[in-house]
């Protein structure tokens, strides 16, 4: 019997011949990602850190991104404590305020290598599945235990296979695809399971794959993963990871799947996730006439150069409609710099967008664009939960960068295919 991606990685990494779904394995993750929550994590284990030290200094990757620059004395103190920890324990991979959103930074800095295991105290750690990584979210206590001991347990997941064919129509994006899948199978449709993407994955750019893998958690998945192909190898090469640095793995053709889904990309239409769950997905037309006060273009889901360029192309020659605040949040400094050099930031700003520093910004409702009661936000982020953007009496809708830009121009919800 053939093996799935998850079965192969977990067998290799736990030093076993063969593993089966449901089995618990002990692994030493290649990396542990933590962000601003590092302060809370090390706060749990002050005495133990002094006694035992950090298990492996090259394992942690720490990125300050969630509330950056600090918004209060408390968050500033957290950042300060994290910098002191990094210095004291010689943590090799630390990225301070302004480098970007942790998930983008992990990939950009070459930490995400195919068939490696990365765990992170952030649910969207599953993003690196775009590069063939077994990556998944954990909690803060587990991150603390990993800092001390360097190993953890994982349950071998069952796997869902998603077979892709065809190509997107113009104006339709990977965001519409992943929202459609989540709408179909539900927010727990892949709970505890791995999701593998097969078929015409070449129709998806690396940026597209990151958008899809990023939202794996919104269908409950443990990992959402793509095969390593020419595009992946080129991307890795561009971030300084050469082919000799990794040994990729992929599922056997006769692997065993718990469920198989098929999607024709040509049949995907622009969609909208209505409040207050990500799986409340409907065709864009059902939101006709919706008026928004705030639009958010960015986050770890859709804050990459392609997203900013798509929006700039749509906004060229127009201004953001009256009554709308368009917030633009590049996912990293590298993306911000590229967008500056290409003139994309100038085009967005001239159209009336507010450019925020690279980081999570308003995505988690802590600062920089909190909503007021009764307001509505259309966002390219991954979550529309009640209260997510700081106000439980506000509404958040999710869509692609193209839909957000089209709506910025029109002033009400707008279909990017009709421009």
């Amino acid at each position: 019997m053939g093996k799935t991606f998850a079965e192969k990685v977990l067998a290799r990494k736990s030093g076993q011949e063969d593993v089966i779904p449901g089995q618990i394995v002990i692994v030493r993750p290649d990396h542990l990602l933590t962000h601003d929550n590092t302060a809370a994590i090390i706060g749990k284990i002050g005495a133990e850190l002094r006694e035992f030290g950090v298990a492996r200094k090259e394992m942690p990757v720490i990125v300050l991104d969630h509330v950056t620059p600090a918004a209060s004395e408390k968050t500033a103190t957290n950042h300060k404590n994290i910098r002191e920890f990094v210095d004291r324990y010689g943590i090799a991979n630390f990225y301070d305020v302004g480098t970007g959103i942790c998930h983008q930074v992990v990939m950009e800095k070459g930490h995400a290598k195919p068939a490696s295991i990365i765990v992170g105290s952030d649910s969207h750690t599953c993003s690196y599945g775009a590069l063939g990584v077994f990556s998944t979210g954990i909690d803060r206590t587990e991150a603390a235990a990993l800092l001390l001991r360097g190993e953890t347990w994982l349950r071998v997941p069952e796997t869902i296979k998603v077979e892709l064919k065809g190509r997107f129509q113009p104006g339709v994006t990977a965001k519409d695809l992943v929202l459609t899948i989540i709408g179909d199978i539900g927010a727990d449709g892949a709970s505890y399971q791995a999701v593998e993407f097969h078929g015409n994955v070449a129709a998806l750019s690396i940026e597209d794959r990151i958008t899809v893998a990023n939202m794996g958690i919104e269908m409950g998945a443990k990992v959402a993963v793509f095969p390593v192909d020419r595009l992946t190898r080129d991307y890795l090469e561009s971030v300084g990871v050469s082919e000799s640095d990794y040994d990729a793995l992929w599922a056997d053709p006769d692997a065993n799947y718990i469920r198989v889904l098929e999607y024709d990309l040509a049949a995907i239409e622009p969609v909208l996730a209505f409040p207050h769950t990500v799986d409340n997905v409907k065709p864009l037309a059902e939101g006709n006439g919706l008026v928004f006060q705030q639009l958010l273009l960015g986050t770890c889901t859709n804050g990459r150069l392609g997203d900013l360029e798509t929006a700039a192309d749509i906004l060229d020659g127009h201004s953001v409609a009256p009554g709308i605040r368009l917030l633009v949040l590049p996912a990293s400094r590298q993306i911000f710099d590229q967008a500056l050099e290409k003139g994309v930031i100038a085009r967005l700003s001239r159209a009336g967008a507010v450019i925020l520093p690279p980081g999570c910004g308003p995505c988690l409702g802590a600062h920089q664009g909190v909503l007021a009661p009764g307001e509505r936000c259309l966002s390219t982020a991954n979550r529309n939960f009640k209260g997510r953007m700081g106000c439980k009496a506000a509404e958040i809708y999710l869509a692609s960068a193209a839909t957000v830009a089209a709506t910025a121009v029109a002033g009400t919800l707008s279909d990017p295919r009709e421009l």
Partner: protein
Amino acid sequence: MKVWKYGDDINTDMLFPGKYTYSCGTAEEIIPHLFEDLDPDFSKAVSSGDLLFVGKNFGCGSSREQPVLGLRAVGVAAIIGKGFARIFYRAAINQGLVLVECPEAVDAYEPGDKVSFDLEGGTVKVGDGVFTFPRLPPEILAIRDAGGLLPYTIDKLREGR
């Protein structure tokens, strides 16, 4: 003992709003905001030994252990659910909070029913019905028996000396 019942897909922003994640860390800071956007009465009225019945995908969304810490601290005896989101499930194991996956028991429960559960035996009683649930694997029970993942980890580090 009170029984609290909630529906499907309750996410972590409802259990503990994201805006507090960098300002509230200790159990005392967390408890007043527990379930704030789901049921504002919960944090005032919950008490030690209470049980929760919940729908599918409970605790979905962000990796956020604060609700688990809070529920542990107020002394919730167990959450009996149709299903739990995986990071929440892991967080519960790591904190020693008891989660029981038993959809039949959740469906059977009506307000006012007498409820009890037996973790070792793997059964939940709701009114006259008795429902079984699968036992946890030994690796996981070892973490719970040690009092959670941190005590377990520290024991292992000491053993390794």
